[in-house]
Structure formats: C-alpha cells, structure tokens
C-alpha cells in the first residue's frame, strides 16, 4: 500500500486554503502518474503474443491509472489549477522515492512482470487498507495494514481527506466550483471506455462530481468497501460485459461525510471496482495466484483464486534490466540508441499531456498516438541485450535519463 504523509491528510481534514487544495489535487496527479512507469515496464516485459490474459489485466490497470490521473487533473482544473505534467514526470525516480509526500517505505521499482514484482511492488502499491481481523478476498489470514500513527496514511485516506477538505471549502466558499473551466477539462467519454461510476464526461462541475471522481479512483484501485456484506457475492458475479448497478461507498460521499468513522468491518471489502471489473489489487492477485478470483462460500473471505487459469509464463517475460535509465546503456550500443528513442518518445508524450491539461485538451489526439508509438518503441528496446557486465539482461525501456 502506498501511503502519504499524515500531516497532509490532517491538514486537509481540518479544512484548508484554496492553494493548499490545489496542492493536494496536484499530489493526486503525481500519485497516479507515479504508478504508470512501473506498470508499463511490467506490461512491456511481456513478449508479444504471450501471457495474454496477464497482459490484458495489466493493460487494463495502467489505463485506469491514466483515467485516475485524468480525473485528478480535471479536479485540479475545476478549482483553478493546472498540473505540470512534464515536471512531475521528470521528478519521478525509481526505485522510489515517489513524490516526496508519498511513503518511500515501499520500494517501488521498475522491473519485468514476475511473481516477485507482482507481490513486492504491484500488489503492495494497490493493497487495500485492512484493519485487524479483516481478511482480503481470496486470502486466508488477516494482514492488517501496519499503523504508523502520525506519519503516513493510506491513499484511500488521502482521497477521503481531499474530499472532506473540498466539502468544507465548498460549504464556506460558494466560488470554489464557480468557474470549473470545463473547456479545459478532458472529456473522458471521448478517450476511455464508459466509466459508469465517474461523473458525466469525467468533468468536475461541482462537489458531487468531485465525489464521484474520487470514489471511482478509490474503488478501481482498492475495491469497494461496502456498508454491509450483503452485496459481496452478488458483486462477484458481475463480470465484464454485463450491466449492473454500481454500489458506491457511502462513507466517502460528501452528503454522508463520516469523517474518520469506522465503517468497514470484517469481510466487508469487496473486490469489485463498481464498474464490472475487479479492483487493481485483485487483478494483480489473479496473475500472482495464477487463477481468476471467484466467489467461494467455503473460503474464509468468501472468495478464492480458484477460477480459470491466468498464466504467467516467466520464460515469455523479457529479463529486463531493473530501474533502467538511458545512462545505464553503453553509449553507441543498439540498446543505448533504442533506449534514447524510447525516452524521447516518453518525453514527447509527457509534453503532449502537459498541453492536454494546460488548456489544449484537443492535444489528446496526439497523446494517444504517442501512447501507441511508445509501446512499439518499447518492443524495439526489448530486442537489445544490455551488454557489458549484464550479459543475461535485456534492455528495458527507460523512463529516466539518469539515476
């Protein structure tokens, strides 16, 4: 679980200035962007045509992180700010630290898609917060989130606190959403598959929209924390392609603001994301456990990874140089040239996204093309051996210029 400095959360919960709200929304953008290089590295390590279900799961997660970044950026725009995507992208350095507000206790590194990376990094990033006694779907024993009072809180808590702060600010400042600059916000309905839990077009017009956006981010990441256990197994039957009603977590809707009230009890964590899929932690869990997550009345959590196989054939995963930077490659080598090309394309993508969220949402047209180009160029990097002393390693597409 990624965590965030408690003082940021505390400040938000107390209510804060508009500038501090913008900073918090910008932190949300940073947070979402920071997960994309690790997940893309995992995705790019899958050899074309292999590990298809696993690749689809990771691809769907990384696309949702892009959606979250978009929702967070739209929120920032709605309250008068704009993110500096290029600066955020260049500030990211792996293995960690993630943006300085975020816990560096968890070592987030860039590496190939292996069970080790899934367990130690991907599932660790996405792990829902659990309290003593709670068991996550598919697991047998409770693993309560370590509590470090006063220092760090969970991402879920951060988003709830952000919503609280927005609620407080909105109550005292009717101007907060008076000029949401909708023309600058990115219309997600043009660029993403339908997200039923998100506000219309993903645009933030008012506090309710902000709540829907934040709820979508939390639910897709960590899963739905239901108010009662009754929906749990019903949810699990809703697989993609079937229509269903989203069950929103009332505890983070603004009208039912509960502050720090404990609403989650044992086995009330639901793996669904409210939109027909599992939340990220459970999608990664399916790859790690090698099977789809299914409702299981026999299981202590009501769920177990005993569905259809989800293959992770590690012989079909490129053995990537971990935490690659362009400077890792021998100048003039094929790896170096391909890596620089990938890095350049990544910078172009950041630049175009910067335009998207700084007044030119139409630039998304170019950004989308660059995303596909990035994938093709990642494949070209992966055709090159690292060389030198790392003769058994394959060059990884670098998201960093140097260390």
């Amino acid at each position, binding site marked *: 679980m990624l965590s965030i400095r408690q003082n940021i959360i505390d400040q938000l919960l107390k209510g804060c200035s508009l500038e501090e709200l913008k900073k918090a929304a910008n932190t949300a953008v940073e947070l979402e962007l920071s997960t994309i290089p690790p997940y893309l590295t995992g995705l790019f390590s899958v050899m*074309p*045509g*292999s590990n*298809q*279900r696993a*690749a*689809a*799961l990771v*691809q*769907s*997660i990384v*696309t*949702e992180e892009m959606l979250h970044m978009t929702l967070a950026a739209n929120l920032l725009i709605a309250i008068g700010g704009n993110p500096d995507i290029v600066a955020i992208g260049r500030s990211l350095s792996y293995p960690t630290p993630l943006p300085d507000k975020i816990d560096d206790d968890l070592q987030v590194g860039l590496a190939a898609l292996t069970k080790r990376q899934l367990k130690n990094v991907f599932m660790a990033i996405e792990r829902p917060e659990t309290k003593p006694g709670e068991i996550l779907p598919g697991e047998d024993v409770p693993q309560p989130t370590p509590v470090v009072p006063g220092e760090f809180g969970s991402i879920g808590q951060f988003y709830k606190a952000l919503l609280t702060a927005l609620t407080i600010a909105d109550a005292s400042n009717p101007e907060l959403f008076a000029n949401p600059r909708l023309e600058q916000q990115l219309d997600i309905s043009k660029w*993403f*598959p*339908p997200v039923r839990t998100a506000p219309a077009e993903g645009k933030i017009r008012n506090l309710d929209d902000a709540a829907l956006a934040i709820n979508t981010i939390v639910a897709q990441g960590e899963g739905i924390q239901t108010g009662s256990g009754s929906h749990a197994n019903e949810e699990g039957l809703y697989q*993609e*392609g*079937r229509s269903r009603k989203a069950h929103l977590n009332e505890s983070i809707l603004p009208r039912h603001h509960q502050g720090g009230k404990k609403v989650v009890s044992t086995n009330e964590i639901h793996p669904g994301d409210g*939109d*027909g*899929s599992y939340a990220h932690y459970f*999608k990664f869990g399916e790859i790690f456990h090698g099977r789809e997550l299914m409702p299981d009345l026999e299981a202590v959590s009501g769920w177990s990874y005993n569905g259809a196989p989800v293959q992770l054939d590690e012989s079909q995963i490129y053995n990537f140089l971990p935490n690659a930077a362009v400077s890792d490659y021998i100048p*003039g*080598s*094929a790896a*170096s*040239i391909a890596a620089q*090309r990938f890095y350049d*394309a990544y*910078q*172009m993508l950041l*630049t*175009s996204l910067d*335009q998207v969220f700084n007044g030119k949402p139409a*630039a998304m047209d*170019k950004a*989308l*093309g*660059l995303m*596909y*180009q990035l*994938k*093709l*160029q990642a*494949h*070209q990097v992966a055709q090159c051996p690292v060389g030198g002393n790392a003769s058994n390693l394959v060059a990884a597409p670098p998201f960093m210029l140097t260390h």
Partner: protein
Amino acid sequence: MSYLQYPRLAFSGLFQSDVSTVNNDPRHFDNATFEDRFQEPTFQPHLKEDSGGAKVTAYNGWWNPWGTGIFGLKNCVVQSALGQDGNEIFSSGEDAAIGLTVGNAGDQPSGKMVDLDPDWQLASCIYGQVITLKAANGQVLMRGEYAPNPFRDLWFNRVGNQRGDSAASAMWQTILTNVTWDLSKIDSPLLQDLKAISEQQNNTLSLRMTTYGYDAALGDSFFSYGIVLGAIGPAYPTEPQSFILGRRFIPAASLLPASSYQAEDYVPNVGWFSAQLVENTLYADLSNALPLIYKQASTPETAYTVDVTCGSGSGSATAPKNGDSNQYWQRPFIIAQLTASTLPTSPYLQPNQYQPLATVDISNANLLSRSGIVSIPVPDSVIASINQLPLALITSASPATGNALLLCCEGNGGWEVRADQFALRLDPNDAEANTLDSNVYVAQYGVPLANAPVALVATSTGPQVDFGDCPTDTPPQTTPRAPAPTINVPADQLAFVQDTTNTNANGMVNLTINGPQALGYPRYYMDGQFFNYTYNFAPDSANGTATVQQQFDQYAIVVHSTYVVPDPVTWADVQPILQQYANLYPVMSQGLFDFSKKEQADANAFILKFVFDKPIDDPDQMPVTRDLSSSKRRALIQYFDSVLQEQGRPASMLDMFGKRCPTRGGGPRTACPEGALSYDQDGKPGCPAK
C-alpha cells in the same frame, strides 16, 4: 531562390527510417498464399549453408519486417550558414544560429516514411513530419510542417564498395509550411532575416535533406539510421517545391557513348546535381553527387566519406590501383563553362573547349559542414554568356595529356523539364481524387522559359512484370507462391492534358492527369495498379529539345481499384482488408492487437476508427491506410462506426484489452483449430475465437 540562397542554414547528422519490409515483396499482399514466416527477417547472413552444404536463402519478410514506419532526425546540428554578404559562417560567435539542433516535433507522434507502391519503391514519401530548430536548452525557435514529398535523384551506387540500400543516396526537397518562430531568446541576425522572408512568403521555408549511408543490417547499433545533410532557406511560390529549377548537371556517361571513354581511364562516379546562379555566384549542390566509400567505424558519419576513387560508375574501377596513367581522378574538380553550345563528343576536353571558373571543394569536411553546397564566383567576362553556354564539372587538365575529363554537364541546349508533383495516387472511387495537377517547369541554362509555347509528352513504359521486387529463394521452393504482378496494364488508363499552350511567367505549365472511370484488379490480390510514364519535350515542341532525364524522374502513379461500399458493411466485407493489413504490418497486428480477428477488432473499434479517420498526412495515419482507396477506407470507418453504435464502447478496460486470439502472436497459425483464414458457408470467418 531556395535553400541554396541567403539566408541559408546547413546542417548534418543522422536520420532514422524504420520502414517495414513485409510489404516490399508485392506477393506478400496475397492473403491466400501468405505464410507466417513472411513476418520473419531474411536470414542473417543473407545466404547460409544447410547441413548438407547447400546454399540456402529465404527472403521471408526482408530486412525489417517489424518496422514501425517511423522517420526522424537525430543529432542534427547547424554546421554553417550563408551570411548576408555572401560569406559563410562557421562559428556561433559570428551568428548564434550555428550549433542549434535541427530536430523533430516534441509533442506529437513521429513522422512516417512509406513507399508509393510495392512495385515502385523509388519515390518514398515522408509525411506527418515536423522540423524544428532548437536551442541547447530545448527551446523551440522555429517549427514547420514538412509538406509530404518523396525523395528524388535516387541512385543505388553512390557508395562504391557497398550494395543495396547502404550504397544508395537520394535527396528530399520540400517546403516547410505553417512555420512559426520564437526568436525572443536568441540574438541571430541570420534567423531574423530568415523569419522575415518566411513571414512574407506565407510562413514557408525551403528544406533539402540528402540521405545516404543507411544501415539496413538488423541488429547493428545504428540499424535503420543513416546520414542526413540538410539545408534550410527561403521558399518562394514562383519556384518548384521539390527541386531546384536551375543548372542541371548530368553525368557525362549518360550523355556520351561508352565508346568515347578510354578503357584504361578511371572516371569518378559523380551523380546528378543542380546549381543556381544568384547574381555573380553559382551555388552548386553536391550533397547527392560526390562518390563515397564505406569503412568500418564507430559512427555512421565517420564510416561514409568522400572518395573519388571508389565507385562503380564508369570506366575501369580498378584503374586507380593498377596505375591509371592519366590519373584524371587525382586532379582537382572544377566548374567550367564549355565554349560551345553543342555537347562535346568526347569526355576528354581540350583546353579550348572550356573556360574554368573555380575549383570546388570536394572534401568530406565540406560535405558535412556546408551540406555539400559550394559557391563558385562567376567573373564578369563569363556572365555575359552564362545563359548561352553549358556549365560542366570537370577535372583540371592532366599533365600527361593536357586534357580535362568531363564529369557532368548540362544537356543539349541546356534544357531542363521537370515535374514538381510526380508520385501520385488517383482514385476512381472519388471524382475529386481522380484528377490531379502536376506543375511542370521548363528552363534553359537555368532561366525559366517564361510565357512561351511548349509541348510535353508522357510515355508509358509499357507492361512489365515486377521481377525486381519478387526475388527467388535458394532453393526456389520457399519463394512466395503468388505470381509477380504486371504493372502498366491495362494500357491507356491515364490521360495527361496540358492545360495551356504557353508556360506562365515562372516557366511553369500545368499537366492535368485524369484517372480512369473505373479500374478492376489487374494485380489480382493487390488493390489498384501502378503506372509509370517518362516525360519530356514533345518532338514538335516550339521550345525545348528532348533531354536526358534522371533514371527515376518519371511519373509514378497508383490508381486504386473500383470498390463499392456495401450497405451495410459487414465483418466479412472488411476482414480481407484487415487481414492483408495484419499480414503486412506485424508490428501493428502482433505488437498491438490483431485486428484481423473480429473479437479484437470490435473490442478496439474506437481506436481503429480513430486512426482510419485521420487526415491522410497525419503521423498517426498508418502506412497501410495510404494504400487504401477512399471507398475501402470509408467501408472500414462505417464498419467500426456501426460496431460502436450497436455495442457502445467496450464494457470495461479489461474487455477492451482482453480479446486476444490464442493463435495469433503467441502461436503458429496452424494452432487455430479451424484455420484462421477459413470461412464458413455464409462467408464468415470460422475462427472459434470469434
């Protein structure tokens, strides 16, 4: 006036052209006989021995089957500039433009390079490319859009000791459009002048890139890269965009009979080039003309260098080593004016046959630092006759014979006739796209033939089987089974109409080229047909006499097949189109998703419609889309539109990315239980994954 003139920037560096090569063999367009291995590279090394010692070659998908089509510049730096007083500038102290980076767009997908047609890979076009001028801190000082244009003056033997694409050289001249500037943070009088001219000329500039030294060996560090020499200068609407209308220098061996050469002489292998007279200075562009040698080196720029003794052009290639007694090749190269308007009959010029103007710098350093452009002062004594007598590139006189050796010179009467637009696509499915203009410019001794009658003629080269692009494997059993296509049939499909009898004030006359009302499938498995026409002055033209044209200076025209969009468009209608695309571009079908399978195509209907709907010159326009007729493209868009209408967008992200056919990419096609290409009784593809 063009890139040759003040204010001019010269740059050099590398280019990348990651072209895909499955489509280099036209037979790979045949879905029925396509094999998976056509997506694999040719053996490296090219020819190997099997266990029994027999030679084996299978071309498969040629040298870069997974090419992305990406084109771009890399490490290109402004090396010099032509200053206002005619002096050349080589240091940033003299003008801050020196040392700037010439590069690509920083915020949009890379440009792409594609062939006009698999049967004519000799006029490859760049599109979606942006050219920028950047400061060291990355600030963009100038940005312009490369008007899509194919290369010209391609020749395959410039590097005397290489073969194939690595030995080739060509030049791309075009205009940059929508040029924007930000010179607020740079003090460069030269850029200020260029900006002022550009703004007066509808925000355009002239760009020339000469490319050579291409590395086509998959696995090399610099694979898919080559050397580019560039020049940027003003563009004027009175001039052609894709070539210099000026003094056209033709290799003497193309003008004189082989018998006029003495066998023991070595003749440097100099290519075609152009020059332009500006007041009393002749600017000659040798960037695509000087012979080169390849030597193993760590960077492309140091591996390919000028060497006048390296060449397979004409004469005796071994003469320099064997002791060529006259050693013309050791003499300095000079630009001279010939003293008679009729062409000499021998390449050995006696002193009274020419008037030397100046020695030209043919060093490799000059090639890289001045983009191969040389300035030749023309004395007043010669200016008087400059428009009446041919210019030539010669060696200075050999002490042994007293004669100079003619290397290149203007053709008979100094006539030049060249089409600005020559690589074209016509589409009988769209009346507007079935007729195109080609501006043909006429000049004599570099002076445009203004407001004068001229008659042009275009001549079909006649039916030809494209054996050149359809090689035979060794042993031949693995050769693609589809028959090689025949081009230029049926005859008389195109009409060339000269719009006016007279040229205009710029020496231009327009040819309207009309496609046929309808065209079938004369190449069977491939859409449309390729036609090529040579062009020249007509025998009865009031002005101009037929001149020798560069080998590939021809009209190269693709005409699409007639295709009626079905109503409604079904999967069975679009599947064969998408199948061909998936076969030819594995980087797309296997690197992204396999759109030849209904489930995957439908799940990705949004992105497919997005790219098929792009303007034709958008960098996201896939190479294959440019091969499609307007009606086939419309059918695809309609199909994906109907998928989106009926199904909406995919239900979830996982739905979008989860549709992966088990037999594609991962496994051999034979793993598909019913065969990926089989169709059921209703004509629907029978893959169980659908």
